[in-house]
């Protein structure tokens, strides 16, 4: 039987607004909360410090050269000519080549592992891909320089021969010459890009695979029960669910590719000119420039290098931020679990 509750005689009956509710954190909850927040803030502070340091150190350079720092192609600090134009183009070229080769490989590997590989093989494949990420980049550099390059120049020649109607594949040499100019095809953005692609594949693949395998079982079964093939399940459930993960993983890979240093430095031969013919010998990237010139830099040259580092920092930071937004949304927003 319902019983009416007598109102508290002290309460103001006219007040009807939201109450303040104590979160009720006690003891170790409070400790954990505080330490987690502190660590998070420290990480944020670190990033701000790095950006602040680079900006502060590079500021004299930016002030001195102004806009020409971004339009000048040559890097001749001893003649007071310093500019990033060619270097930035090279950086983006190498990163995009790495992505063009790495993306399809990472995407298909991730799909294979999460959708097609037999369960027994799956864990092995996952750890193999993760192992790829554990190989130091100097090893990839050596691999690219000593092992891949001698083979890749044939692919480069083939591309220049049959795909030279695409301007970026053009090379100023006669591919049919009896003794073709092999050195024209070495140390190029193309070869550096391939070495970098090996480094970004595990990162992109791991993220895509994780997102694919999170596709809800209920929806997978719904598609299968309608008579869908495996590819049908992938197309109707896995890819729509994992779309943001694919984009995010690719962007993170791009961020990594933009900053990759040692492997690129080992492979390329420096060339400070804006060129879009990626198969031709010579290019330069921002990080390789810094690593290469850092050792013998005078204080003013150091400032120029740090300014270059600042630009690279801003590039990768923004790419990674966009990537993180995509990856996080794919985890929280795409499912409609009730």
């Amino acid at each position: 039987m319902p019983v009416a509750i007598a109102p508290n005689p002290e309460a103001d009956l006219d007040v009807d607004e939201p109450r303040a509710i104590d979160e009720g954190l006690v003891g170790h909850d409070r400790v954990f909360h505080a330490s987690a927040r502190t660590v998070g803030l420290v990480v944020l502070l670190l990033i701000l410090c790095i950006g602040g340091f680079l900006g502060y150190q590079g500021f004299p350079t930016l002030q001195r050269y102004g806009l020409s720092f971004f339009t000048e192609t040559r890097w001749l600090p001893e003649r007071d000519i310093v500019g990033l134009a060619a270097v930035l183009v090279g950086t983006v070229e190498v990163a995009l080549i790495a992505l063009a080769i790495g993306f399809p490989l990472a995407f298909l590997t991730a799909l294979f592992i999460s959708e097609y590989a037999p369960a027994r093989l799956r864990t092995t494949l996952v750890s193999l891909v993760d192992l790829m990420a554990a190989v130091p980049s100097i090893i990839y550099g050596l691999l690219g320089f000593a092992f891949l390059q001698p083979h890749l120049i044939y692919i480069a020649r083939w591309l220049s021969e049959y795909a030279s109607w695409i301007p970026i594949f053009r090379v100023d040499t006669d591919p049919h010459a009896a003794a073709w100019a092999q050195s024209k095809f070495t140390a190029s953005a193309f070869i550096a890009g391939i070495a970098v692609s090996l480094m970004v594949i595990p990162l992109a693949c791991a993220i895509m695979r994780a997102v694919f395998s999170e596709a809800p079982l209920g929806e997978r079964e719904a598609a299968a029960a309608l008579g869908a093939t495996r590819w049908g399940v992938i197309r109707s459930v896995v890819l729509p669910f994992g779309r943001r993960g694919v984009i995010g993983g690719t962007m993170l890979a791009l961020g990594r590719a933009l900053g990759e240093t040692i492997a690129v430095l080992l492979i390329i031969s420096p060339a400070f000119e804006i060129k879009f013919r990626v198969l031709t010998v010579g290019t330069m990237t921002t990080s390789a420039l810094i690593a290469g010139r850092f050792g013998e830099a005078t204080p003013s040259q150091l400032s120029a290098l740090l300014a270059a580092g600042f630009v690279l920092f801003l590039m990768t930071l923004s790419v990674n931020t966009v990537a993180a937004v995509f990856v996080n949304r794919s985890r929280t927003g795409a499912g409609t679990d009730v």
Partner: protein
Amino acid sequence: MSALGVLTGRRPSVDAAQPRTRSAAHLEAERVSAWFGDHKVLERVSLTFPNASVTALIGPSGCGKSTFLRILNRMHESTPTAKMAGEVRLDGVDVYAAGERVTETRRRIGMVFQKPNPFPAMSIGENVIAGPKLTGVRLKGASRAEVIERSLRRAGLWDEVKDRLDRPGGALSGGQQQRLCIARSLAVDPDVLLMDEPCSALDPTSTLYIEKTIQELAHEMTVVIVTHNMQQALRVSQQSAFFLAEAGKPGVVVESGPTTQIFEAPTDERTMDYVNGRFG
């Protein structure tokens, strides 16, 4: 598969917009056993599902009803370590026989799951025609609209959603989502519809709607429903099968027959106890 289908090795291209004139699709399971790894969960279950009627599978949790249901349309094998024995015959043809395509079996034997699972990225209309699209039937313009309307009408959802077919399916209420899933199953024109506790996540009103839908569907197709709700089994089914797994043993069918007989005059004492709510 029709004679034409056998000759060409392909599904005859029926006009998907038109309901097929149905010959009796007869489903029977013979000596079906099931394992997960080395653990046997189902022991030699033989059941016949007459055409154009509803069969209820009842029994306490963990007795293998759902596993049995998933064996009927070959969803069982998608679980790692799942194994089965026996035969499932659809119109006399064993669906597990070599050369039988699993996708075609699943198209002919549709399934509605316990939890409504519409595709969240698709609109209501796209959800309905997802099946035809996935099985390679191209639907355009008028025939597409016709399949959507006919399927939604059969699922009893048309009047509620006809003005918002392009809205996301995930925005519907739970009961509406479940009817959307039924409509989606019907759009591929199955001969049999399997339902795994389709109302267990729904409120009483939605349950009533779905039961009405089931009764109407049973005029033209074979329906097999797993339910924990005795009243529901009584309301919608003509046949019932009582599953039971005794401690440490795989599930078996204790008794099966006309629903009225199972509920009013069961021959086995355990059936009597269960339908009267004395255990399970």
